[in-house]
């Protein structure tokens, strides 16, 4: 296949960037999108042009490191991460735009690479259960209703990639946060810190420059793990209830 790429290039955090156009011939439909970018970089390197910086690591959709806005859509397709997107989803002659996540809370470092450390700080504010090593009771001492355990697992599937923020017109991190609050809030082990957790996480989220949720739903649609919007309802519900605790 012959592909035309329009890619955002930005030399550093404090410089302005712009879209650059590249042509690539002989793209195989079996290649992944990132392998196609590897090919382009190999090509640029051989021409003496600096390769394009982009993040990726596991390349199997679980680490959450990769993330590009492809033709205006985070990760390019429903239900996958960028590394799981294959070129068979495109046609010969297609023109594809590639941009980084765009959000105040995720500043660009270079080209397509952004800084998502704000997510770590939200988890650090309260996204955990305090259980020091060695202090745990026997695992079977607390049975967990299967329905709740399964729901908690569904929430815990979040990979922290930030697609929800990139997709949201308000650049809100509420789906990310909702997933964590739901995961821990459904489990018996998560109850003692349930109300302090939500207050701390929400205030950190707001301080980092993420916007609020206005029920657009673009987040769930962009989420590679298809975390449902109801996790935000759980979050809002707990936020309201936390005032009484």
């Amino acid at each position, binding site marked *: 296949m012959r592909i035309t790429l329009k890619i955002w290039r930005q030399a550093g955090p404090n410089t302005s960037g712009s879209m650059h156009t590249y042509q690539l011939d002989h793209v195989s439909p079996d290649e992944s999108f990132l392998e196609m970018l590897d090919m382009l970089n190999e090509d640029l390197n*051989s021409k003496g042009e*600096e390769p394009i910086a982009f993040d990726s690591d596991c390349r199997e959709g679980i680490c*959450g490191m990769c993330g590009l806005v492809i033709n205006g859509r985070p990760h390019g397709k429903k239900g996958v991460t960028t590394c799981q997107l294959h070129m068979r989803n495109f046609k010969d002659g297609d023109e594809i735009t590639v941009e980084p996540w765009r959000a105040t809370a995720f500043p660009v470092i270079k080209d397509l690479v952004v*800084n998502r450390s704000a997510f*770590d700080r939200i988890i650090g504010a309260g996204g955990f259960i305090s259980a020091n*090593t060695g202090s745990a009771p026997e695992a079977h001492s607390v049975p967990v209703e*299967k329905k709740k355990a399964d729901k908690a697992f569904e929430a*815990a599937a979040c990979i922290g990639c930030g697609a929800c923020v990139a997709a949201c017109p308000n650049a809100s991190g509420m789906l990310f946060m909702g997933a964590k609050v739901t995961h821990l809030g459904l489990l018996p082990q998560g109850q003692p810190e349930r109300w302090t957790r939500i207050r701390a996480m929400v205030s950190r989220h707001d301080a980092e420059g993420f916007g609020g949720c206005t029920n657009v739903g673009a987040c769930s649609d962009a989420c590679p793990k298809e975390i449902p919007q109801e996790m935000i309802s759980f979050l809002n519900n707990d936020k309201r209830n936390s005032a009484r605790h």
Partner: protein
Amino acid sequence: MTDLINGLYREGEPIQDTKAPGGPIEQRWTKRRFEAKLVNPANRRKLTVIVVGTGLAGGAACATLGEAGYNVKAFCYQDSPRRAHSIAAQGGINAAKNYKEDGDSVYRLFYDTVKGGDYRARENNVYRLAEISPNIIDQCVAQGVPFAREYGGLLDNRSFGGVQVSRTFYARGQTGQQLLIGAYQALERQVKGPDNPAGTVEMFARHEMVELVIVDGRARGIIARDMSTGEIQTHLADAVVLASGGYGNVFFLSTNAMGCNTTATWRAHRKGAYFGNPCYTQIHPTCIPVAGDQQSKLTLMSESLRNDGRIWVPKRAEDCTKDPRQIPEEDRDYYLERIYPSFGNLVPRDIASRQAKNMCDEGRGVGNELLEVGPDGTERRVRRGVYLDFVEAIQRMGKAAVEAKYGNLFDMYAEITGEDPYQTPMRIYPAVHYTMGGLWVDYDLESSIPGLFVSGEANFSDHGANRLGASALMQGLSDGYFVLPNTIRDYLASGPYPAVDSHHPAVVEAQENVKARINHFLSTGGTRSADSYHKELGQIMWEYCGMERTEPGLKTAIAKIRDLRKDFWSNVRVLGKADELNQSLEKAGRVADFLELGELMCIDALHRRESCGGHFRAESQTEDGEALRHDDEFCYVAAWEWGGENEAPILHKEPLVYEFIELKQRSYK
């Protein structure tokens, strides 16, 4: 020290683990914990520990040391500690809980792991691992790890390769992710930040360790490169822990993440840390086959699939191009069930992998034909794939049950291959997955450099010559939560060690070496990318030091690697600048280290003239083609000392003593 052996290495004095106590094996860990010196809480504040890597072994250690009150400096090359490659482990984590009352025990887990490792692991370390395993599950459940549960609300288990009990705990096909997020959250709870100014852990994400600092014979710090800005930083401490993972990416194509590398461990090796059993690599049997020459990585399909899927190839080579659904039952060869009736599809990984290779070598592989250059230099066309079939499972359990158990794996397969595994059998082939070798450590996980500790996949200690499924997560968390925090205190109790000035000659020298290397890469003016060298190295390693190794092949590989390394240093092209995010520069540094490690792996594989576990020497096999050990000659750990630039490495043997388990020819028939 001996003269040069085979022109490749010298042999030095034998070594021993001096830290494990004697007595009954079930009391040794308790004894060691009691004997290890204590550090009182007020003194912990005066001590600093550097931890490189934030996967299960590193993240868990950071959290635990931070909780205890030590100052911790944590480093990872990813943009967040949550992304370490432990996250990609799918199938599960073993623990001797015996919740199924199927005859499991700590002793059985110990026995299975020693046998699974083909009797090349230390009994003391493996017993401790088995002993700690139940505590890991308790700890993870308390943190909110959402393991699979039964309707009664209790934890579910499944079985895994190489064992006949159900002791594997899991969270669908995302067990590694859930365990890592548990450790990550525990770590973040300790990280100094806007909401936790008194946090004990200082987190350095997007930082790569590029050199180890040794002062007065002790590991005292690291040189790190801030990957966002290119700044070269010195970090000093009382002890250094490497939890930086394995070196499977020496093969270029593997199931490892793109960034996994040996730089931290190799830099430490060059500064005096012995490298244990570098040739022990694990080739995982169930991965998605290679599709084309642009491929950047291989994707694992969890071994748990072998619980319900059946592996087969056509009986006749002429059927290999047929639609598998059209091949009748009597024309299929369920070869693992045929050769190993008692373990069937659940034989250990090394055996399942080698048999898949054998079937394809016989011409009965399926999928696309690939052009290969064989060890003899001739070109050949081979189909590299075998079927993993769920038709019988779907009939037995129903599609919904199969989907609930394996849904995400099936989706992943469909996304990558464009085929629907509910309709047609999956095609799988072995791929490099894990490295049992790593830096040599004693019972305390301390390397041959005082004050340098190594945990998780980065060390060599627990899996011998082959790792059983669901044991990597167990080892990572055992080391990180329970072993290292208990053993490192014995070393820290003699601290704080004398303050090191940043102008100390050892620090200055390490800094200068790092800068010189970077400047070299940016100024060679060569023509080839670091990636292209990496790919070529990978092909050499896979062909000659992969699933089957021979003396002439390994010698060829060593010569080829030396030529390639020479060319790399004069002809690699790295564009961009030193003081900015520069991914080409990062790769060049990692490839440089892989090029040295690859040679040591081949030398180790060449010197070990026996087959054991994942190390299969064609010259040493039983009549029916199984690995044949030579316990009289090779029942030892090969710990390699760096011999100096362009000098031969030095082999130190640590004899393996089996006091409790009798050495046997492994049989899964």
